[in-house]
C-alpha cells in the first residue's frame, strides 16, 4: 500500500476545507477568489487521475477512516465504477468552475460572489464524498451537504423566481432526505450495521424481510426525488432552468447522476441484484416509471419554448434511460447506464453552458431567438450541436455508445417494450435537439438580432464548452478504453 491509499479522502476533504477557508481570501482580496477556487478542484482531479490504473476492474480500494475496521468505523470504498464517476465529477466541476467567473460576475452581485464559490466547492466535495463512501449513513451526511448547497445555489441570484424555484426544490428535497434517513434507520434496525459490504452479508441472513422491503422502497422514493425520477421530477424544470447556467450544468450533469448512482450502489452492493424477495417488485415499478420518464421528458422537451427548460426536460428523459439500464440487471445495461452518466454529464453540462454563453452575450432564453445564431456565435453553436448530437445518440458521439449498450442490455434481458421505449426516446430527442440546431444554422435571422463578427462568448467561457463537446466526441470514438472495464466491473457487481 503506497501513499495513494490516502488519495480518495484527500480528494473529498481538500475541496471541503478550502471552501471553509475561502471566505478569508474573499475578505482580503475578493478578485482572487474565482481563481483560488480552481486550486482545490484541480488538486482533486489530479489525485483522481493518479489513481487511474491503480484500481482493477474487479477490485476496490478500501480506506478505513480513523483506522477502525469496517463495521465499526467508516469505510471509503472506491471501486472501478466509483473511480470512473469520481473523475467525471472532478472534470465537469472543474470545467463549470472555469466557466463561472465571467457569468457569475454578471448575474450575482458582489458580496455574494464569495458565497457562490464556497457553496460550489462544498457541493463538489460533497459529491465526491457521496460517490466514494462505503457507508450508508455517511452517504446521507454527504447527501445533506449536497442538498443544502444546491438549494442555495439555485437561489443565489436572489431574484423572485430563483428563490421560488429553490423553495419548491427545498419542499421536495427535504421530505426526500427524511425518507432516506428513515430507510437507513430501518436498514439498521433489521441488520445492526451501516457498512455497505457488511450490510449485504447481513441482509442475506436477516429475518426481517418486510422491514428491508420498505427500506428499499423508501430509498427509491428518497433518491428518486433527488434524481428527478418521474413522477418525482416536479422541482427539476424550474430549478435547473432558473439556476445560473454553471449551476444548471452541475445539477443536470452531475447531481441527478450521482443520486442515480447512489441507488445503483444500494441496489447492487447492499441489497444485491439477485435478491428478488426484497427488490423485485420495486425494481419492476421503477422500470415502468423510468419508461414513462423517457417519454414524458421527451414530449415535454419538444413542447418547450425556453431553451434551458427544454434542456431540463431532456434531463428528466435521460434519467429514465439510466434507470432502465440499472433495472435491466444485465452487465450491458449496467455498463450502459454508467457510460450514460459520463456522456450525459458531459453533454448536458455542455448544453447548459452553451445556453449560458447565449444568455451572457445576448440575454436570449427563447429557442425562437436562436435563428441564425451561428453567424455571431459559431463556437457556441458548434459545441451545442455536438453535445445535442450526443444527447440524441448519433455516432461518433459518446451518446451513441451508451444508448447502444442500454438498448442492448434491455434486449438481452428480453425487455422488448423497454428497448422500444429507449428507441422512441432517442427519436424524441432528435426532434427537440435538431429543431434547435436547425434554428441556429439554417433559419434566416429576420430580425437581424445576430450580427456577424459581433463577438462570441469570452474565451474563459468557450474553452470549457468546447472541451466538453470535444469530450463527448473523444469518448465516442475511444469508448473501448473504458467500456470494456465497465462491462467487467458490471459483471462483478451482478
Amino acid at each position, binding site marked *: 500500500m503506497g501513499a495513494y491509499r490516502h488519495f480518495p479522502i484527500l480528494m473529498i476533504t481538500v475541496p471541503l476545507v478550502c471552501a471553509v477557508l475561502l471566505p478569508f481570501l474573499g475578505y482580503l482580496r475578493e478578485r482572487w477568489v474565482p481563481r483560488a477556487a480552481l486550486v482545490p478542484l484541480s488538486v482533486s482531479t489530479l489525485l483522481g487521475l493518479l489513481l487511474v490504473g491503480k484500481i482493477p476492474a474487479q477490485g476496490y480500494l478500501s480506506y478505513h477512516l480513523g483506522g477502525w475496521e469496517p463495521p465499526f468505523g467508516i469505510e471509503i470504498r472506491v471501486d472501478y465504477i466509483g473511480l470512473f464517476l469520481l473523475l467525471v465529477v472532478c472534470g465537469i466541476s472543474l470545467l463549470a468552475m472555469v466557466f463561472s467567473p465571467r457569468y457569475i460576475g454578471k448575474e450575482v452581485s458582489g458580496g455574494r460572489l464569495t458565497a457562490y464559490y*464556497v457553496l460550489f466547492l462544498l457541493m463538489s466535495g460533497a459529491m465526491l464524498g457521496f460517490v466514494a463512501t462505503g457507508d450508508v449513513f455517511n452517504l446521507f451526511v454527504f447527501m445533506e451537504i449536497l442538498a443544502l448547497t444546491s438549494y442555495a445555489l439555485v437561489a443565489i441570484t436572489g431574484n423572485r423566481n430563483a428563490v421560488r424555484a429553490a423553495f419548491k426544490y427545498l419542499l421536495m428535497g427535504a421530505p426526500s432526505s427524511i425518507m432516506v434517513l428513515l430507510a437507513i434507520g430501518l436498514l439498521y434496525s433489521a441488520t445492526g450495521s451501516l457498512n455497505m459490504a457488511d450490510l449485504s452479508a447481513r441482509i442475506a441472513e436477516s429475518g426481517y424481510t418486510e422491514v428491508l422491503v420498505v427500506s428499499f422502497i423508501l430509498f427509491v422514493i428518497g433518491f428518486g426525488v433527488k434524481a428527478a425520477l418521474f413522477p418525482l421530477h416536479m422541482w427539476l424544470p424550474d430549478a435547473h432552468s432558473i439556476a445560473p447556467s454553471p449551476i444548471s450544468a452541475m445539477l443536470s450533469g452531475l447531481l441527478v447522476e450521482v443520486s442515480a448512482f447512489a441507488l445503483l450502489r444500494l441496489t447492487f452492493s447492499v441489497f444485491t441484484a439477485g435478491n428478488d424477495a426484497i427488490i423485485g417488485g420495486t425494481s419492476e415499478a421503477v422500470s415502468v416509471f423510468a419508461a414513462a420518464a423517457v417519454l414524458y421528458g421527451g414530449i415535454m422537451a419538444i413542447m418547450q419554448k425556453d431553451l434551458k427548460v427544454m434542456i431540463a426536460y431532456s434531463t428528466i428523459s435521460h434519467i429514465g434511460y439510466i434507470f432502465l439500464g440499472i433495472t435491466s440487471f444485465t452487465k450491458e445495461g449496467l455498463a450502459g447506464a454508467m457510460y450514460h452518466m459520463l456522456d450525459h454529464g458531459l453533454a448536458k453540462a455542455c448544453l447548459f453552458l452553451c445556453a449560458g454563453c447565449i444568455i451572457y452575450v445576448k440575454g436570449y432564453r427563447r429557442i425562437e431567438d436562436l435563428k441564425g445564431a451561428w453567424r455571431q456565435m459559431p463556437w457556441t453553436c458548434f459545441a451545442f450541436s455536438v453535445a445535442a448530437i450526443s444527447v440524441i445518440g448519433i455516432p461518433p458521439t459518446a451518446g451513441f455508445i451508451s444508448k447502444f449498450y442500454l438498448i442492448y442490455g434491455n434486449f438481452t434481458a428480453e425487455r422488448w417494450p423497454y428497448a422500444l421505449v429507449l428507441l422512441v426516446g432517442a427519436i424524441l430527442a432528435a426532434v427537440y435537439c435538431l429543431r434547435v440546431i436547425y434554428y441556429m444554422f439554417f433559419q434566416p435571422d429576420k430580425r437581424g438580432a445576430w450580427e456577424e463578427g459581433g463577438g462570441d462568448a469570452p474565451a474563459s467561457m468557450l474553452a470549457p464548452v468546447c472541451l466538453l463537446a470535444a469530450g463527448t466526441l473523444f469518448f465516442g470514438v475511444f469508448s473501448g478504453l473504458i467500456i470494456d472495464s465497465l462491462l467487467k466491473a458490471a459483471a462483478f457487481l451482478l
Partner: protein
Amino acid sequence: MKNLLALLFIIALAALLLYVAANMPPMGDPDNPTATHVIPRYLEGAEKETHTENVITGIILNYRGYDTMGEVTVIFSALAAVLAVLGRERRGRIHAYVDRSTVPSSVIVRTMVRFLVPLIVLFSVYTILHGEISPGGGFQGGAIIGGSMIVFTTIFGLYESSRRIPQKVRFPLEGSAVVTFFLVGVLGMVGGGNFLTYAWPRVAAGLQPALVTWLTVLVEIGIGLGGAMVLTSILFCMIREEEEIAVVA
C-alpha cells in the same frame, strides 16, 4: 384533484410505515440485530480504545468521526446558504435597527438576562470541555451559546448583541469546526495512521491515551466554537432580514 392525490399518497405512506412498524424487531429486545452486532464493541471497547469515558463521544468523534466531520460541514453549508440568500449584516446599517428590534421590556427582565447570560455561557464552556467525560460536547455547548444569544438578542436587540460578538470575532471562527477536524485528520496521516486516526502509530504507546484525549478535547472545542458562531451568525442574519422588511414596510 391535486389535493386528492396528495391525500392518497399520504395514506399510502402511512400504511407503509404502520406495516413496517408492526414488523420491526421488538423494541428493547437484547437479541435485536442492533444490540448484537456493532454495539457490544462500542460499549465494551470505547473506554479502552478511544480513551473517552463518554461512549457517545467516543462513537461520534472517534469511531464515526468522519460522519461528524460531514455534519459540521452541513452546519457550515447552512450558514453559507443563509449568507448566499440573505447576505451578511453590514456594520454601518445596524444602527438603524436599534430601536425597532426590541420590544420594550421591564427592568426585571433586563437585569435577569444581564445576570443569566454569562452563567449560560459559562455552562456551555463546561458542556464543551466536559463532553469527553459526561453527557454533552461541542454540538450541545455550541447550541447553548447560540441559545443564550437568542435570549440576549430578543431582549436587547441586534445592535447590542452584535456588539457583544462582533462580526470580526465570528467571521474567523465560523469554520473552526471543519478546519479542526481536517487538521486532526491530516495529523493522523502524518502520524502514520489513516485520516482521523487519533492514536498515532508513530507515537510511543504510553503517550497515546493522553494524545487521544487531548485531540478529542481539541475537536470538541473546535465544534463548540464553530457551532456557536455559525448559529449566532445565522440568527443575526435572519433578524436583519426581518428588520429590513419592517423598515421597508
